[in-house]
């Protein structure tokens, strides 16, 4: 499998997916 970080679009998509994951992680932490 090709490394997504080899392309700029792959890198940006990785960043967006990570943003979504971290958003839900942070949201699940009580204030």
């Amino acid at each position, binding site marked *: 499998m090709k*490394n997504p*970080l*080899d392309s*700029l679009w792959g*890198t*940006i998509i*990785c*960043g*967006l997916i*990570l*943003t979504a994951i*971290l*958003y839900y*992680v*942070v*949201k699940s*932490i009580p*204030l």
Partner: protein
Amino acid sequence: MDYVPALARWLHLMAGVMWIGLLYYFNFVQVAAMKAATAEGTQAGIAKHVAPRALLFFRWSAVVTWLAGAALLGNQLGNAFTLSHGMAGIGVGAWLGTIMLFNVWALIWPNQQKILGLKPATDEEKNKARRVAFLASRTNVALSIPLLFFMAGGWSHRAIFGL
């Protein structure tokens, strides 16, 4: 004492713009430019005159950004890094920034020194250094996306994103 967070925020933003701006320059401009220049045999100008200067401001602006961010968090630094007391949003941003700072100083800069000939290295070592520096740099581009989200959303847009 309100001057400290105000000045720290200002400095954090200025240094952060320089750090992430140069990171995007490397990834969106220089990587492709270097490839094209190498094919034409004109890469020496970039390698000798542009890259070392860009790397100088890149790695030191990373340090200033981190220190100013730590000063801005002040006595909330511990809560941010432990993602507690309502500091989880900005805390994730702080963790991402810290990982990115580590990538700059432990992976990108030492390998770039070999690539640019600032440190002696064999051709094989240079090829390996090129790959490690490239992947560390691309990792930082990917991490910068949630980093900026949590930096922006951690405070001023907190209510909108509900963090």
